[in-house]
C-alpha cells in the first residue's frame, strides 16, 4: 500500500490490481461537520419539542428526558448514521464524503464508535483545531480519531458513464479512407494522449468559445504531428472536427 503524502491513497489487491481513494482534506470535512452540527441541533430541537409534552405529566421527567436526549443525539448521531449509511452522515452524504477502513476493508462498528468518541480530543480547544491540524499534518488526512480507529475519509466524486454518443456515431469520418494511417495513429498515440482528446470532445460545451478554439487547435496540431493525413482528408474541416475524427478512430474501432 502506498501512503505517500498525496491526496490519494492507493491500494493494491492480491490480484495485482491498483485502486485509489481520493482523500478528503480538512476544509470539506469541516463543512460536512458544520452540516452535521446543524442537523444535530434540528434533531435535538424536534425531540425537545416532542418531550415538552411530557412536562404536562412531570416537569422533572421532561427535563431529564431532554438532557438524556440531547446527550444521546450529540454522541450517537455520528455513530448511528455512519454505521447505518456505511461511513456517511448527513453532511458527508451531501458533500460526497465517506469514512472507510484504511485498508479498504469493510468498516467495523468498533471503528465507527472509536472515531466518534475521539472527537472529544479532536474538537479541542475549539472548532476541531486539534483534529484539523492533525488532518493537515497526516499523510492520509486523518484526525486523531481516524488514526486510532484505522479509518480514512474519502471523497467520492459523482461518477457517470461517459456519453460516447457525442462521438461520430453514424457520421462520415474522412480519416476512415486511410486505414493504414488510422492503424499508425492507434499505434503511436498513448492512452493518456487519447484520453485528453476524448475529454476535450466530451467536455467541449463547458469551454468558453475562445478557449475552445485554442484548445482544439493545439490538440489537432499535436495529432497532426504524430500522423500526417493527406490534405484530401483534412481540408475543409475545423480543428474540432479533426479531433473528433481522431477520437472516433482511437476509441471506436471500425467493424
Amino acid at each position, binding site marked *: 500500500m502506498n501512503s505517500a503524502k498525496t491526496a490519494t491513497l492507493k*491500494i493494491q*489487491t*492480491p*490480484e*495485482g*490490481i*491498483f*485502486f*485509489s*481513494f481520493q482523500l478528503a482534506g480538512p476544509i470539506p470535512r469541516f463543512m460536512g461537520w458544520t452540516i452535521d452540527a446543524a442537523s444535530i441541533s434540528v434533531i435535538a430541537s424536534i425531540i425537545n419539542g416532542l418531550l415538552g409534552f411530557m412536562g404536562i405529566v*412531570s*416537569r*422533572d421527567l421532561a*427535563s*431529564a*428526558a431532554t*438532557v*438524556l436526549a440531547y*446527550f444521546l443525539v450529540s454522541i450517537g448521531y455520528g455513530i448511528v448514521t455512519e454505521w447505518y449509511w*456505511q461511513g456517511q452522515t448527513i453532511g458527508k452524504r451531501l458533500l460526497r464524503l465517506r469514512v472507510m*477502513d*484504511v*485498508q*479498504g*476493508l*469493510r468498516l*467495523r*462498528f*468498533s*471503528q465507527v*464508535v*472509536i472515531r466518534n*468518541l*475521539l472527537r*472529544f*480530543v479532536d474538537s479541542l480547544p475549539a472548532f476541531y483545531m486539534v483534529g484539523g491540524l492533525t488532518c493537515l499534518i497526516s499523510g492520509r488526512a486523518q484526525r486523531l480519531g481516524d*488514526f*486510532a*480507529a*484505522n479509518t480514512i475519509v474519502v471523497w*467520492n466524486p459523482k*461518477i*457517470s*458513464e*461517459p456519453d*460516447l454518443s457525442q462521438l461520430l456515431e453514424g457520421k462520415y469520418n474522412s480519416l476512415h479512407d486511410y486505414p493504414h494511417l488510422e492503424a499508425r495513429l*492507434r*499505434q503511436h*498515440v498513448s*492512452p*493518456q494522449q*487519447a*484520453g*485528453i482528446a*476524448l*475529454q476535450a470532445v466530451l467536455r467541449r460545451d463547458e469551454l468558453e468559445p475562445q478557449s475552445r478554439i485554442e484548445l482544439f487547435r493545439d490538440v489537432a496540431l499535436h495529432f497532426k504531428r504524430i500522423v500526417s493525413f493527406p490534405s484530401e482528408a483534412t481540408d475543409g474541416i475545423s480543428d474540432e472536427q479533426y479531433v473528433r475524427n481522431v477520437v472516433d478512430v*482511437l*476509441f*471506436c*474501432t471500425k467493424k
Partner: protein
Amino acid sequence: MILDLKKFIAEEKAYWTELETALEDLETKPGHRLKLNELKRFHYAYQRTSADLAKLRTYSSEPNIRRYLESLVARAYGEIHETRQKPHRLTPFHWFFTVFPRTFRQHLRAFLISLAAMLLGCIFGGFALGIDPAAKEVIMPFTHLKGDPSERVAKEEGADDDRLKGAKTYFSSYLMTHNTKVSIFTLALGVTYGIGTLIMLFYNGVILGAVAFDYITAGETLFLFGWLLPHGAIEIPAILFAGQAGLILAGALIGWGRPVSLRMRLRKISADLVTLIFGVAILLIWAGIIEAFFSQYHEPVIPYAAKIGFGMIELIVLTLFLAKSGKERSI
C-alpha cells in the same frame, strides 16, 4: 493499442452490474449470506471487473469508467478480503455478563495502572490539603465542598425538606451524562500516549483524596462513607475502567517493542475499547440513579449503616462480577 470503449463497455457491463447488485445486497442487508453458487459468481464478477480495470488502465485513460470500476473493485475487495468475523446478532446479556468482564480481565495490567494513578492522586490530594488547608479553594470543584465539613453534615442531617424534590430525575440524568462525558474524555485522551488519561485519573484522585482527608480530619468519616459509597462504589470503578481503556489505546500506540504493526495493534484492541466504554456507560447509569435517589439522603432519613452496607454489597458484587462472570470452565 487503444481500447474500443463502446465494444468494451457493451461486452463487460453485464458483469459490472452483476457485481454492483451483489455488493448492494451485501452492504444493505447485514444478515445476508451468499450461497456457494452465488459466492462463485460474485468472485468471478470481481475478478472480471478487476481484469477490466487493469485493461482499461493499460489501454485507455477514460477516467469516468476507470473511477467507476475502481469503486466497484474497492467495495468488492472490502467484502472478499475481510477476514474479521462479521458481527453477530446483538446479544446484550451475553455481551454484558461475558464479554465485558472478560475484556476487563484481559487488560488487568492497564486497570492496575489506572488504579495506581488515581491512588497517587488521592495521596497527593490528602497530602496537599494536610500541609496547606488554603489549597481547598483550588482543589475542590464544587462550592458545597469548600465549606466546613461539620457544618455541611449538620445542615444535611437537620434538613426538614427534600432539596431535590421535583428534580431528582433531572439530577440523575445530569450525573449520568456528565460522568459519561468525563469517561469518554478519559478514554479519548489515551491518544496522547496515555499522558492525558493519567492526568485525568490523577486529577480525579486528587479531588477524591482531598475530600476524604477533609471529612476524615473533621471527624465526619461515617458521613463521608455513607455519602460516597452507595454511588462511588460503582462510579469510581467506572472512571477507572475508562482510564483502563485509555491506557489500552496508549499501549497499542506505543507498542512496547512488539513485532506487530501499529495498524494491527490498533485493530486488535478496537473492539475491547468499545466494550469497556459501553460497560462504563451502563455502570454510570446505575451510579447516576443511586446518587440522585439514594446517596443524597442521610441520617435520620436513611441510616448510615444501611448506606454503607449497600455500598459494600455493590463493591463486592462488582468485584465478583469482574472476577468470575463469563469465566471459561476448565474441564
